[in-house]
Structures are given as structure tokens and as C-alpha cells.
């Protein structure tokens, strides 16, 4: 039986293959980051998204190029899914001038004007008010743009969550709040930080449409995100998505993981969003023989290229240390 005999992938499956590629790019990119971190080529904090890829990939699919994104310190996946090149991202982690933030931000502060990626915020909850403001500006200037704001379930305890939800709802602003509920805030399980553990219920108390979504199923995430984005863009004010997911790795590279059972981690790994999609596509025969391998090869090449680029990239001159404290020529 030859490759050509595999059933022709429909548009739907082709799209799913695309989703798979996006998730794989993130997974392989971060796996490389672990190596590079151990080799001290990447420094600072490194928060991995491994296990949560379906969330960023699914939501980004629902956004237009003109929309805006606000993320957290755990944002490699969002950056890649949004279209920031692996080169710019890797160079940033290497602290190089060619990095998307010229090496001044690092892993926690990925910024990119071209894709309207407003960071990379390392203060839990700190990005929410900014997202509200981005949306306010779009509203006041009559632009039909959406601002997607990602944050963890731990951020729900912060006052800035409360104030931002209310402000966005009160003013009917085009914000898509994406709560990545991976059950833990560092070592604190949701039940040890919230009296009401149903995050969607909390969001609804601001009069914001709020849905809970299986964050391990990229198609479910994309569907929900598309519906929510349509509502937001249509002037329905903010929407809230609780995306139930799980982080397979430690919180950061320094986390002894005393707060959860290996067993629990293993259970969740069985729901790996990438493996699940691969299974589905393969069982349906929508991945031609060798297609996955080809994809892996292409991704490996992309990442190796990014590393080579990052290594070769120049550093910001030390003389420029105080550049960008104020805008050029403003002082």
C-alpha cells in the first residue's frame, strides 16, 4: 500500500495537522530550552508550558492579525503560536540584541509590536489592567479589535483580577479573558487559595459570559475561543474562558515539586494534548506515513536554526545600558 492510498485529508483535518504542528513546535522548542538552561546558555527564570500547548494554540487560532495579546511569564507557547519567530524568541532567551526584546526582557518578557504581543508580564495579575486599557483604546477609536489576556488561576486571588473584570464588564470592553487553570499556583492548589474553586462562577459574578473548556483538547479550545471572540468582536463586551489544563513540568527550574503526587502528573500526561491529536489523526488515517516524522524533522531544523541564530547574534553594547529607559531623544 502506498502513501497515496491514505484517504485525502479534508480541510478540517488539514487544519488539525496545522494545530498539531503548532503544538509540537512549542513542545520541542521548550524541550530544547531545558537542555540550554542546564548548559547555562539560558539564564534567569524559565517557566515551561509543556502540557498546556493546546490552550495557546487553540486561542491564537481564533484571533485576527490585528488583535492584541497579553500573556504571563509562562509565554513561550503564546509567542510561538502568535507568530513570533523561534529565532527572535531564542535570541531573547540568550540575551542577544536580535532577541524580540533585544535581550533586555528574557524568557518572562517576550514583546513583539508586529504581532501586537504586549508581553510577557512577570507580576501575577499585572497584565490584566493593561489588557483592559488596550481594549479601551480600541473601543474609543472605533476599531473592531480584540485583546486576549492570558493568566493563571492563581491570579484570580489578586485584587487586580477583580478590578479588571469589573472595569472591562462595566465598560463592555473587547477583552477575551483566558484563565489557564493548571490547578496550581507554584505549590498552591486552587482549593487552598480560593473559597469558591469554580473559576467560571467567579467570572460570571461580574456579569461576564464565562465557559469552562477542556484545555487538553486543542479543537475544543479553538471552538470555544472562536465563539467567544465572535461575541467580543460583536460588541458583547468581555468573555471569560476557563481553560482546564495541567503543567507537566515543575513551576520553574527551581521547583522540587513537593506539593503534588507523581501519580497525578502521570494521570494528566495520559491526556497529553499532542499525543491525543496524533492518535486521532493517525487512527483516522489523516497522517500520511512519515508525515509526522517529516514534521518533527522540519521543527527540529527550525529550532536548530533558531539556536544557531541566537548564538551568532550580537549582544547589546554595554554603552547602551541605559537606552530605552526613556524614548530616544525625549530627554
Amino acid at each position, binding site marked *: 500500500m502506498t502513501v497515496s492510498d491514505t484517504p485525502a485529508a479534508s480541510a478540517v483535518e488539514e487544519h488539525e495537522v496545522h494545530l498539531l504542528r503548532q503544538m509540537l513546535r512549542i513542545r520541542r522548542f521548550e524541550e530544547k530550552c531545558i537542555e540550554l538552561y542546564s548548559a547555562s546558555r539560558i539564564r534567569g527564570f524559565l517557566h515551561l508550558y509543556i502540557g498546556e500547548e493546546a490552550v495557546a494554540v487553540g486561542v491564537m487560532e481564533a484571533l485576527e492579525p490585528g488583535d492584541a495579546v497579553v500573556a504571563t511569564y509562562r509565554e513561550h507557547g503564546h509567542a510561538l503560536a502568535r507568530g513570533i519567530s523561534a529565532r527572535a524568541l531564542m535570541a531573547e532567551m540568550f540575551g542577544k540584541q536580535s532577541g524580540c526584546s533585544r*535581550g533586555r526582557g528574557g524568557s518572562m518578557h517576550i514583546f513583539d509590536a508586529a504581532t501586537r504581543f504586549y*508581553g510577557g508580564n512577570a*507580576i501575577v495579575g499585572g497584565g490584566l489592567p493593561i489588557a483592559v486599557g488596550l481594549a479601551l483604546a480600541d473601543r*474609543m477609536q472605533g476599531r473592531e479589535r480584540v485583546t486576549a489576556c492570558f493568566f493563571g488561576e492563581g491570579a484570580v486571588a489578586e485584587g487586580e483580577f477583580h478590578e479588571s473584570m469589573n472595569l472591562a464588564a462595566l465598560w463592555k470592553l473587547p477583552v477575551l479573558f483566558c484563565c489557564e487553570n493548571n490547578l496550581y499556583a507554584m505549590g498552591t492548589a486552587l482549593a487552598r487559595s480560593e473559597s469558591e474553586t469554580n473559576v467560571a462562577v467567579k467570572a460570571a459574578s461580574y456579569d461576564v459570559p464565562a465557559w469552562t473548556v477542556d484545555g487538553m483538547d486543542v479543537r475544543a479550545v479553538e471552538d470555544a475561543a472562536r465563539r467567544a471572540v465572535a461575541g467580543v468582536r460583536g460588541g458583547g463586551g468581555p468573555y471569560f474562558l476557563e481553560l482546564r489544563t495541567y503543567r507537566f513540568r515543575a513551576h520553574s527550574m527551581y521547583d522540587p515539586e513537593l506539593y503534588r503526587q507523581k501519580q497525578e502528573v502521570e494521570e494528566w500526561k495520559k491526556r497529553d494534548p499532542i499525543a491525543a491529536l496524533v492518535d486521532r489523526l493517525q487512527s483516522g488515517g489523516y497522517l500520511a506515513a512519515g508525515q509526522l516524522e517529516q514534521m518533527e524533522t522540519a521543527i527540529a531544523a527550525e529550532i536548530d536554526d533558531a539556536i544557531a541564530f541566537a548564538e551568532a547574534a550580537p549582544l547589546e553594547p554595554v554603552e547602551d545600558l541605559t537606552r530605552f529607559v526613556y524614548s530616544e531623544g525625549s530627554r
Partner: protein
Amino acid sequence: MTAPAAARTISYREAMREAIREALQRDPRVFLMGEDVGLYGGCFAVSKGLLDEFGPERIRDTPLSESAFVGAGIGAAMNGMRPIVEIMTVNFSLLALDQILNNAATLLHMSGGQFNVPLVIRMATGGGRQLAAQHSHSLEGWYAHIPGIKVLTPGTIADARGMLWTALEDPDPVLIFENALLYNMEGELAPDAGAVEIARAAVLREGSDVTLISYGGSIPKTLQAATELKGKGVDARVLDLRTLRPLDTESVLASVRETHRAVIVDEGWRSGSISAEIMARIMEGALYDLDAPVARVCTEEVPLPYARHLEDAALPQVPRIVAAVLTVVGAGG
């Protein structure tokens, strides 16, 4: 009916209002946002009448959510608007300090120059109205410690009228501190008064014996002290810093090199006040020009008490300024 070219008398409050109105008229991206700036007319009546003139979208009342609406100002500024965020008073700005220090002041740098934050934050500051410990802070000098923001302290009618537009044209975050005791101050304003530069300190009164360095709410007291000193045979120059960050070190040093003596009048708490920074810069740049140690008249290190006599004793007052100056001109050789 006064001739069009004549200067007119106007209050600091009206000057601020005119500046806001002009900004709203000149630039459609400008809007005012804060607690009770609209329907209430502004806690200090600065924005009174603007709601009727510009509507609720551009004169935007906010809930009591300092952190969120300051952060929203940051986001709006990064997305094409020119927000003027009013924090009712500096005392409440502490609730928004995370947004100011960790976001507004850092975004341009963290993003490698991609996202500047053309945001203006106005707030009333200062004591002297018997509002006690939680409502009398004077933290503008403290804010001046933060790289990435600029700190303006209009102490004259002309600056109240002219600093806002300059701040709005600045590509980076600018904080404007308005001492609440100045709102009722009246003064002459030139008919062509408009935007002013904010880079330089200004000599408000010439003098050769000593330089009195001050800013914001302490300016009137310092000028009065200079007048009283004249009667005592001391010719005091009054230098208005105007901007606390970046500090115009050159003007300070140049004046000290001429008068060889200086006294700083600063409503901030003494320890760690902006006056300490000025003394440090004088030590670094003009130590050998000094005929006497620089002195400072600051607020006593106490949460401001309600009782009038105690609050008066805590804040810089004309007699304390005069006494400090007399010591300084008497001292040294």
C-alpha cells in the same frame, strides 16, 4: 472688559482646567479618566464643567479601582490614546504603585524599545489641611526615585497652565503632582501662556547671598521667606526645581557656585527626601564652592497629625525656613 493682550488673574485650579480643556480640544486621543472627574466635577473641582463639554467617553468616571484604571491608562497609552489619568490624591496612588513602577516605568525597556507609554498621571499631593495621617502624604520626591518616569511639580500658575501639554507630548510616563493647597492660589497669567519646557529649574527670585531650592507646594512659603529675609538684610535667590525627575542638576550647581550657600525647602519627610538627593549632588559637584553646609527644611518624620498646632509644627513653615537660612548665612566663612 480687559484688553485682549493684557495678562489676567487666574487661579491654579482654573489654570489646570484650562490646560486639560485645551488638551482635549487639541488632540482627540486625549481623555481624562479617574474617580469622580465627571459628574461630581472632580474632588477639587479641577474638571468641573468638562463633562458637559466633552461627554462621558472623554471625561470618564471610574470605579474605586486605582490599580485597574491606572493600568488601563497604560494599556490605552500603548494603543494610540493619550490618557490623563487622575488619581484623586497621592495617598491612594500606593494602590496603583505596582502598575506605575512594574509596568509604566519598565515597559519601554523590557520590550527593547518597542512599546512606549505616553501616559500622564495627575494627582493632588501634600498636607496642611488637617486631613491626618492617611490623607496628607507628600510623596513626589519619593516617586522621583523611579527610572522610566518623569515627575513634575508645578508650583506656579504658569506651570499649572503649561506643564500638562508638554507632559502629553512626552512619549513616556509623566506624573504631575498638584499640591492641593495651591488650587486656590491666584496669579497673573500672560494672555499667550501655553506649553512650557520641563527640563530646567527656574529662578523665581534673584538673590546673591543664598539659594533657596524648592518645588511645588513649598514655593509660596519659600518666596515669602525670601521676602522676610530681605528685611533682615539677606538677599535670597529662589530656585524652583519644577521637575524632580530628571533633576536639573546643572542649574542647582550653577546657583550654588554663585551663592556658596543653599537651603532646601521640601515637604517630604526628611529622611530619604529629594532634598537628600540634592545635597548629595551638591556634595558631588560643588563641595568646594560651599561656604557652609547645605541645610534642609523638611517635614518632621511623623504620620501627619490632625490637630492644627501639631500639623503646623510638622510641616515646613516660613519661620523655620527663615531661621534655617539665617543659620546658614551666619555659618561657615
